[in-house]
């Protein structure tokens, strides 16, 4: 039993860290559990930080008629756009609204889907029937038309309004998935146990049942961010959102209608903002690896 001493030593730390994690501290140490998760965290933090800070420190990109679609060069790493603005600058400054709306809408969508989906499944009965009905209706109402009409009657100026609008329209699919899962989860005995302890319906639904779907919700949340981002861009395409300022969505729309795809020198104008969205999503998905492990202890492998 030469191992005994080693064991005691290491095992003590394990108990210790266990206690700490149970008591909900040191989220960071949990986030760094997996290398790729940590890399994801860094990517996400970098992009978010960049989008928040860059508008404050990077000066606006100046138009320059002599530099239209100039292609990548040492002065303009990603080239210039149709009015000769530096694309790097635009990228740096243009994340804020997109990220805000993306996260905001995804958060709203996911929240609505989770709340309605799980409650409907949990309560069943009339509430469920009504909610399903509403879901079906929201899901089937053609969104382009609805947005077009909305855009005609309201000024969708603030990112909040945009996030809210996108969020409010895109929850039904996830809602149905969540509902289906809760339907079978709620039959599990631990739910019954929680009911017996009278933990309160909300607690049971949101603290006992929902976390069991955490990884599923998480991935859908991330997908929702990207979807919301493109919904936002779609709204620019439809002319429903004001096109002021620097913003990846506006860039994509602008690049799209100005045919940036057709010229290798201009392609970066559309590819760069898309790449940012891609990278952010990649980062989020990598990050979700760690988050899943935090949320689902069975997945932890170290």
């Amino acid at each position, binding site marked *: 039993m030469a191992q005994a001493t080693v064991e005691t030593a290491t095992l003590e730390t394990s108990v210790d860290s266990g206690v700490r994690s149970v008591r909900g501290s040191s989220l960071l140490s949990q986030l760094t559990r*997996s290398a*790729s998760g940590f890399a994801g965290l860094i990517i996400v933090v970098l992009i978010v930080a960049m989008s928040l800070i860059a508008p404050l420190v990077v000066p606006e990109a100046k138009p320059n008629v002599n530099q239209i679609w100039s292609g990548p060069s040492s002065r303009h790493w990603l080239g210039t756009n149709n009015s000769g603005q530096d694309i790097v600058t635009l990228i740096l400054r243009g994340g804020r609204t997109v990220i805000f709306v993306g996260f905001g809408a995804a958060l709203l969508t996911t929240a609505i889907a989770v709340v309605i989906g799980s409650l409907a499944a949990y309560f*069943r*009965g009339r509430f469920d*029937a009504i909610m*399903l*009905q509403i879901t*079906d*209706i929201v*899901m*089937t*109402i*053609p969104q*382009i*038309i*609805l947005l*077009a*009409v909305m855009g*005609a*009657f309201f000024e969708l100026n603030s990112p909040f309004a945009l996030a809210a609008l996108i969020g409010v329209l895109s929850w*039904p*699919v*996830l809602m*149905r*998935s969540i*509902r*289906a*899962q809760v*339907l*079978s989860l709620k*039959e599990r005995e631990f739910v019954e146990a929680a009911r017996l302890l009278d933990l309160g319906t909300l607690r049971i639904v949101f603290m006992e049942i929902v976390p*069991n*779907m955490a*990884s*599923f919700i*998480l*991935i*859908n949340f*991330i*997908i929702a961010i*990207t979807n919301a981002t*493109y919904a936002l*861009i779609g709204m620019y395409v439809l002319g429903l959102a004001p096109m002021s300022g620097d913003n990846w969505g506006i860039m*994509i729309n602008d690049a*799209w209608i100005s045919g940036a*795809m*057709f010229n290798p020198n201009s392609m970066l104008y*559309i590819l760069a903002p*898309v790449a940012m*969205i*891609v990278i952010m*999503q*990649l980062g989020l*998905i990598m990050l979700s*690896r760690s988050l*899943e492990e935090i949320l*689902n202890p*069975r*997945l932890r*492998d170290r």
Partner: protein
Amino acid sequence: MAAIEAGVRGRPATGAVPILKKVWRNYALRRFLRAIFVIWVVATAVFFLVRLLPGNPVEQYIQVQVSQYGATYADAQRSAQAYFNFDPGTPLIQQYFVYLWGLCRLDLGMSIGNRGMAVSTLIAQYLPWTLFSVGIGVGIAIIIGLILGMIMAYRRGGAIDHAVTAIGSFLHAIPNYLLAMIIVVIGGARFGLFDIATMRGTASPGVTFKAYGLAFFPDIFYHASMPILTYVLTTVGTWSLVMKSSTTQVLEEDYVTVARARGLRDLRIRTNYVGRNAILPLVSQIATTAGFVVGGAIFVEQTFKYDGIGTLLYTALQGRDYTVLEGILLIVTVTVVFANLIADLVYSLLDPRIRTTESGD
């Protein structure tokens, strides 16, 4: 054993349920009625939304006449009215009831923007192509996505997982219209990987089933190949990611361990033990793509000049062809609603636990 079959000593069922109540209790019927209700609500909403769209077909026609051919408003308005056979001045509610009555007779009406064309003819012309291309594309994407998702979950943290996650989320994060354009511009125009000029459209000029028989099919597959590729690439990532997370959850279940202990073949475990349970939460998500199959991908179809229902939707939207818009959207609605209905039924088939509770309460 004989004793068991000897006889049933049940107590008589409590009071006879009135027949209506019994009918209402019928789950499938109830769902069907609800579906009809949803269709009605959405059809109504569509009707009014479409009419609320700024601009109307007459106005647009007039604008063109006036600005391009120097017609006076009055003249243009007169010829517009003659052409469109539609009076924007009719009270909306009256139009609505005409529309509803048409629906009841399964009559979608006549196109406003295309004189003499029945909406149903138009839809019949365009829809099959979308069903064909998007259907195959989405089908392939779902199958590949589900398989990839499972592989990723099995190899969680491994090279495949990382690679597919990266590629999958990369593809998911690229909007389909952009990908379509990349395929056309880079693959087609720049590198000449395929002939974009002959690939456009749904079939080569003059090629019909009537004229060509079976040779028709290779041709339409040839034409659909790029749209299909686009649909597959842009959706496969999503499916694989969602499936991965769902599979990850199932893999932790005890019955999977037991199945391994039973020495079941891996394939069997993957399909019937892991796969089937992992797909459960995705069923409704798969169902909603039915709407996409019908609605088409407007921009993708345009990029490939693939004339599916998305193109029709787009032109109808551009030209404010109310009846065509309503017709297409109604079809989409009906499809989505019934796909959901089917999803629910399929779900209860796949997950027997739900079924019992359903009839239990």
